[in-house]
């Protein structure tokens, strides 16, 4: 990408600095050469793009995406996930290790990296299993895999149940200052559940996952993070009490950050409604009080990352009685619209709402992108922050269409996406 591209007449939003002003971005050789109110139509450049007053922000960084590659390419490939990401303004995403085979070795991390470089439109970072085969028994080669480029280590959706194994794996990871992500869950309490436990689940006659399933595991993880000194990402927390626990631990000096799935901010348990299998996810949609507490956390900047928790499932695994249906929802294309809708409805400044999808995750992983800074990669998204639209799953780029947003009205739509200064998506 040689030459100078000028994007002008934009509402420039940079969560890293809190910047929200009219101006533009100057791109040179795929890198941001300048940014701010000084960039205008008159700025010298080879290509000039009039943003027409729309919002221009760093491309999104999504810390939790599953594809089906390798092993279940019928669900999603790195290429189709890349298309979905580009259409959703996501310019970097992190893939989870729970594939077939499990990403738990140097060779497989290398495979994902190379494969994504050749087929995906956006940047893809692999993670690796914290334990071999995600079996929760033996730690993976954390040091060598980290050198091979794994963003962090996680057991995905299979929590490490043996506290001794987890403690030693965390302690060992701390030798390298590696980041360990753990989605807090207690299988003994959440196994075979369909939705949030409570009065509504009872009325529907469905097995519910109690809040304690998350609390117990999270408290354990926080204690082990405190004693081992590991950097912990509490992955996809979904309750008010979980957020409070993370904040309390952080205040006490524990190196803990947290992520929240965008659907946990958008939906509550009532949205499961008429046994909608697209709304069967882990962690489940919680009660309204929990949802509001997470939104409050978003306003306060207490949430480090908002993730799509993209988990494609084909029709044959979803068009089943809800108890038999697979968990998971696609989310790459709705991550930004969901956040923008919440920001609009809850009156959250865009520079605040977008921090956990830009500089927040970038800082966790030590990435140069996720900010509109001179010298940063020109990974950008242009969007109409309040444009109303209705989500139709058939319009999604993902190979699987299992979106809980299907049929819902959203405010905010992606217009154009750039990766290293090159356009990877433009709405026709």
């Amino acid at each position: 990408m040689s030459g100078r591209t000028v994007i002008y007449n934009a509402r420039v939003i940079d969560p890293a600095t809190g910047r929200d002003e009219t101006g533009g971005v100057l791109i040179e050789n795929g890198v941001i050469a300048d940014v701010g109110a000084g960039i205008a139509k008159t700025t010298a450049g080879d290509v000039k793009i009039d943003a027409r007053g729309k919002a221009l922000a760093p491309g999104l960084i999504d810390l939790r995406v599953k594809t089906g590659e390798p092993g279940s390419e019928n669900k999603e490939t790195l290429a189709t996930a890349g298309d979905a990401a580009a259409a959703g303004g996501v310019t970097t995403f992190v893939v989870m290790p729970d594939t077939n085979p499990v990403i738990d070795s140097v060779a497989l991390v290398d495979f994902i990296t190379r494969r994504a470089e050749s087929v995906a439109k956006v940047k893809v970072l692999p993670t690796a299993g914290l334990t071999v085969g995600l079996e929760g028994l033996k730690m993976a080669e954390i040091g060598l895999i980290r050198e091979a480029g794994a963003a962090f280590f996680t057991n995905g959706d299979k929590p490490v149940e043996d506290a001794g194994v987890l403690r030693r794996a965390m302690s060992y990871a701390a030798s390298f200052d590696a980041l360990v992500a753990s989605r807090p869950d207690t299988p003994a309490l959440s196994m075979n559940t369909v939705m949030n436990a409570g009065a509504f689940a009872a009325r529907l006659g469905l097995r519910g996952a109690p809040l304690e399933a998350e609390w117990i595991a999270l408290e354990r993880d926080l204690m082990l993070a405190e004693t081992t000194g590991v950097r912990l990402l509490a992955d996809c927390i979904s309750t008010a009490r979980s957020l409070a626990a993370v904040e309390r631990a952080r205040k006490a000096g524990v190196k803990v950050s947290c992520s929240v799935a965008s659907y946990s901010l958008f939906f509550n348990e009532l949205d499961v409604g008429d046994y909608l299998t697209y709304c069967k996810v882990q962690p489940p949609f919680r009660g309204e009080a929990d949802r509001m507490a997470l939104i409050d956390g978003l306003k306060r900047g207490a949430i480090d990352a908002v993730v799509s928790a993209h988990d494609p499932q084909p029709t044959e695994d979803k068009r089943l009685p809800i108890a038999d249906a697979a968990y998971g929802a696609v989310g790459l294309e709705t991550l930004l619209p969901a956040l923008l809708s919440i920001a609009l409805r809850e009156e959250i400044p865009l520079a605040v709402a977008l921090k956990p999808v830009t500089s927040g995750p970038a800082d966790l992983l030590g990435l140069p992108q996720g900010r509109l800074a001179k010298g940063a990669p020109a990974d950008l998204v242009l969007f109409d922050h309040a444009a109303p639209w209705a989500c139709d799953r058939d319009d999604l780029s993902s190979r699987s269409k299992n979106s809980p947003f299907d049929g819902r009205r959203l405010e905010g739509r992606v217009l154009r996406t750039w990766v290293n200064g090159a356009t990877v998506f433009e709405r026709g």
Partner: protein
Amino acid sequence: MADYAFPHRHLLGIEGLNRLDIETLLELGDRYVELNRRRVKHADVLAGRTLVNLFFENSTRTQGSFEIAGRRLGADVVTMPIATSSVKKGETLIDTAMTLNAMRPDLLVIRHGSSGAVKLLSRKVDCGVINAGDGTHEHPTQALLDALTIRRRVGDIGGMRIAICGDILHSRVARSNVACLNVLGAEVRLIAPRTLTPPGAAEWGAEVFTDMRKGLAGCDVVMMLRLQQERMDGAYLPSAREYFHFWGLDEDKLSHANPGAFVMHPGPMNRGVEIESGIADHKTRSLITEQVEMGVAIRMAVLETLAKNAPDIGAKNQ
């Protein structure tokens, strides 16, 4: 120093020894090195005394070293065959001790897999007891032979920067060495992955590192520890190859230590796991075979010293 009366009846650990105690043993060890290099290696200081080796854990070099040391000093050396003995038939540790005590040995050399077991036995017998390694607690004669090896190379251990690397958590050698080198005024560093770093190691009087290259910077001596096979199966470490990559001593990592830094290992070595063969066999830098030689000398020094302090056997029972 020659007149100094070593004040202990047993040698259960380095813990509790002062600088004079240690230096007395080293001086004597030095003299026995010279004796051992003669054609006729014999002294009669332990003539008529009985030394019993009691090894509850398999050992080749330490057991052999004590046997040779005892024989060179003229003692009657008996090595109890534990593997086929009454211990296997369910006799308790204390009963074994009482039985042996009745045979009136002068010195008892004991190795046992449980930390504290040697101390327990020492309370039940009348003779002098030497700890040849108890669990993950202490191995004092190893620390003394290491100190003798270093001292003969560098003169004064005081002010030397010495790194101990590897499985500190499970190492009795490391515990004894940290104590010994600290008393002798060295600057001790511990280098290990966090899973093999004991809790509170920072309070042992040593600086703790996880990054081996940083830890080795400016070191005069690098002491490697043996990594037990069972530690590499994914519980404490993911694999032998990852361990070698980050904590195995190779040319590159050793280049961060001082030029000409010495390399030591208590043996037996896992070549290619904790140490590269080229370094283990290095003509000028590796002191590994020298350590074995010093082992016999220091054990002679320990045996002679403790034999002097052993009470008249049986006095208590008469």
